[in-house]
């Protein structure tokens, strides 16, 4: 089946540049339209909770939730930011991601979809009306009545074919010019020849006209086409959603003036301001400021690292505590992010070469149709001693019966049913062939930080501390946006403890928070600054006067991590854990989850090499990862999944994106893909068997239009029903 492949741009910056322009344009209009993705919505209560709450939000004109797309569109006055909406949704308990309106204005795609749907509608209408007339003919109308009915049928069918048959004719013409053979060639040939012969027969008062069969063929094929289109449009919008999740912009400092510019506009030597909580947009050197950097996305390390003047930073790191000024050493094409994107583009082009089962079936089937009917034509021409009309009629009958009506539905129906099911579980399929590749997987490789774990720390030894100390720690921790401080504050608050009153609270970027409590100086922060001895584990230290306390942290498991590993192992898959983190942490996690094979301190290249080695042994690998250090591995793997919290490069490199926080859908996806492939194979066999039975009937000249219509509808319906069994 010929398809026009619409691929997302592999380079995030290319997507971002127009998006940033669109954003700048948007700022000028008084009313803002904000789009956010809300993956967790699922019911009527969600709709009314969200819409009702947002309607109360100041500045919001209206809000509407699209449950099919899990997307909220907010019409608001200028000044309302997406981040405000997201914060509000967060309080309601819904995780949300910002989408870029510019990238998502899918007018072209939407127009194509509507046009296809309109063609489906028109051919459906024509089919029903012609069928009414045909039933009369089949039940015995004769002579002038039959001719009249045929004539009316033809008057409906010819314009319908001209209107609704265009997608097939267009593709066939394209293939013809490129001297390729695809499914649309024989289909167009069959449609045109049948219409031509049927018109001729009608004018000659012939007994058989195949108008209803032609229109029915177009109708069923268009339904398949539309399903395919929908699946691709959803995949495309998923990719766009991801590109839109973050518009790469940077704050440039020039002569003390700040301006927000697209990352693509930055040049080497520019000074960029990175605020706490922001992501470093470029590779560079810190010139001013002190802070801590979260490198988890790049290296998998959970421990934030200190950054001060002369520290080298790379794009993708997150600034935690203090503002930093960074001098750009590499931007745009030279940055590490862009090199990753190139790598991803290479891997994607390799994946394009994957031949799907539908393509295999079509390439085996496409030449058979014209060959069979041509054969029938010549044999009958010879047998009948030169009866052109009889032989043409038989050729047309066999052509219309062999036409792969059910084949056109066999794959799209299953893919639509299964991707819809996965979407409801929170998995977006970005690539059309991903489901098929997923079914072949026998080994699953997980990344640690951000994938099996949340990438957020959790205090582990709160019970070892006195209530008074905890209250002081809470008072200090609440003043900081550092992830350790926030995790500590959250955990202590959950115990119902009120914070101690602390005076003169100040945050010292890169070190911690200090203040005065009951006449003593109290500090919460790094070991050396507080005056404590640093231990081996991730920890924050508290000092009250001269005494010090240590709060140790461990990374929190992502919900469903245990389930997913167990159920993958139950399905007979080999599970690996690969991380850039230190061996003790990785081994500990592997033991907790029951993973036998693990590898620590793996560099990005090591991960990719390991996957290649597994491939060389004949394994098909599913890689699940989120960091920049996983990107190479994600694109090397047979199929890959990344969580929505992953870095853009990682999401761009993977075939599926997990929108929910829960990991469990990954295991479901693996088992579902197997079932889906089985359904696809059953469907292909089913439509094949119909042909094996009915083609000889057509070839012997016994087929009537009634037979053709019967075979076509029965096979299409059984194929669709079989696909729906997935639900």
């Amino acid at each position: 089946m010929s398809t026009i492949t619409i691929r997302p741009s592999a380079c995030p910056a290319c997507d971002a540049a127009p998006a940033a322009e669109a954003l700048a344009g948007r700022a000028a209009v008084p009313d803002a339209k904000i789009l956010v993705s809300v993956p967790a919505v699922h019911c009527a209560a969600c709709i009314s909770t969200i819409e009702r709450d947002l309607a109360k939000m100041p500045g919001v004109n209206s809000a509407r939730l699209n449950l099919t797309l899990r997307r909220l569109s907010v019409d608001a006055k200028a000044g309302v930011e997406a981040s405000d909406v997201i914060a509000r949704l967060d309080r309601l308990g819904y995780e949300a991601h910002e989408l870029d309106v510019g990238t998502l204005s899918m007018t072209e795609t939407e127009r194509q979809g509507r046009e296809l749907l309109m063609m489906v509608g028109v051919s459906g209408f024509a089919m029903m009306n012609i069928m009414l007339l045909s039933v009369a003919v089949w039940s015995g109308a004769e002579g002038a009545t039959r001719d009249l009915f045929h004539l009316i049928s033809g008057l409906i069918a010819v314009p319908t074919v001209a209107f609704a048959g265009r997608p097939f004719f267009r593709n066939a013409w394209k293939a013809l010019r490129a001297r390729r053979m695809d499914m649309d060639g024989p289909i167009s040939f069959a449609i045109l020849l049948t219409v031509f012969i049927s018109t001729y027969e009608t004018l000659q008062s012939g007994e058989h006209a195949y108008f209803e069969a032609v229109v029915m063929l177009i109708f069923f094929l268009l339904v398949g086409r539309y399903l395919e289109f929908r699946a691709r449009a959803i995949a495309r919008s998923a990719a766009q959603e991801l590109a839109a999740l973050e518009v790469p912009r940077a704050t440039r400092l020039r002569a003390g003036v700040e301006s927000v510019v697209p990352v693509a506009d930055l040049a080497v030597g520019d000074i960029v301001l990175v605020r706490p909580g922001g992501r470093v947009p470029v590779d560079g050197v810190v010139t001013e400021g002190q802070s801590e950097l979260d490198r988890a996305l790049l290296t998998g390390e959970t421990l934030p690292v200190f950054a001060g003047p002369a520290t080298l930073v790379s794009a993708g790191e997150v600034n935690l505590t203090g503002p930093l000024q960074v001098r750009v050493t590499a931007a745009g094409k030279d940055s590490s992010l862009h090199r990753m994107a190139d790598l991803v583009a290479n891997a994607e082009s390799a994946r394009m070469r994957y031949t799907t089962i539908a393509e295999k079936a079509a390439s085996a089937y496409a030449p058979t149709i014209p060959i069979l009917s041509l054969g029938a034509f010549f044999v009958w021409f010879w047998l009948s001693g030169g009866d052109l009309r009889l032989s043409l009629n038989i050729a047309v009958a066999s052509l219309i019966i062999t036409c792969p009506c059910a084949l056109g539905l066999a794959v799209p129906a299953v893919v639509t049913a299964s991707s819809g099911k996965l979407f409801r579980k929170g998995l977006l399929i970005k690539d059309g062939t991903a489901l098929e590749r997923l079914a072949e997987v026998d080994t699953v490789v997980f990344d640690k930080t951000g994938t099996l774990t949340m990438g957020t720390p959790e205090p582990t030894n709160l019970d070892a501390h006195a209530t008074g100390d905890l209250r002081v720690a809470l008072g200090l921790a609440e003043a900081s946006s550092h992830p350790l401080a926030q995790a500590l504050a959250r955990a202590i608050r959950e115990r119902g403890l009120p914070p101690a009153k602390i005076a003169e609270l100040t945050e010292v970027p890169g070190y911690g928070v200090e203040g005065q409590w009951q006449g003593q100086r109290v500090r919460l922060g790094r070991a050396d600054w507080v005056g404590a001895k640093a231990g081996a584990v991730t920890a924050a230290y508290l000092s009250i006067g001269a005494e010090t306390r240590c709060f140790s942290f461990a990374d929190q498991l992502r919900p469903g991590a245990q389930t997913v590993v167990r159920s993958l192992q139950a399905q007979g898959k080999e599970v690996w854990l690969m991380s850039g983190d230190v061996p003790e942490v990785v081994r500990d996690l592997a033991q907790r989850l029951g993973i036998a094979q693990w590898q620590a301190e793996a560099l990005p290249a090591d991960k990719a090499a390991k996957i290649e080695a597994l491939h060389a042994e004949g394994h098909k690998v599913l890689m699940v990862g989120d960091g920049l250090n996983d990107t190479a591995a994600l694109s090397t793997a047979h199929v890959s999944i990344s969580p929505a919290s992953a870095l853009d490069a990682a999401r761009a490199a993977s075939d599926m994106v997990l929108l929910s926080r829960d990991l469990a859908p990954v295991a479901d996806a693996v088992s579902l893909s197997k079932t889906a492939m089985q359904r696809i194979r059953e469907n292909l066999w089913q439509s094949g068997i119909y042909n094996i039975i009915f083609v000889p009937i057509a070839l012997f000249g016994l087929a009537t239009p009634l037979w053709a219509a019967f075979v076509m509808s029965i096979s299409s319906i059984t194929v669709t029903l079989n696909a729906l069994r997935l639900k």
Partner: protein
Amino acid sequence: MEVLALLIPASLFLGLLGLVAFLWSLRKGQYDDPEGDSQRILDPRYDDKPKPVDEDQRG
């Protein structure tokens, strides 16, 4: 058989009516969010009076 002269145009007209209705609903965006629409009937917010028509529901 004279009745056919009436019945055929009548059936064609009715079919055409259905087609027009379909195209109208398509243009109105009624197939944009089938899942949401099926859930919205459970929402009691507009039971007493309909929601005032606003921009995002048109077109």
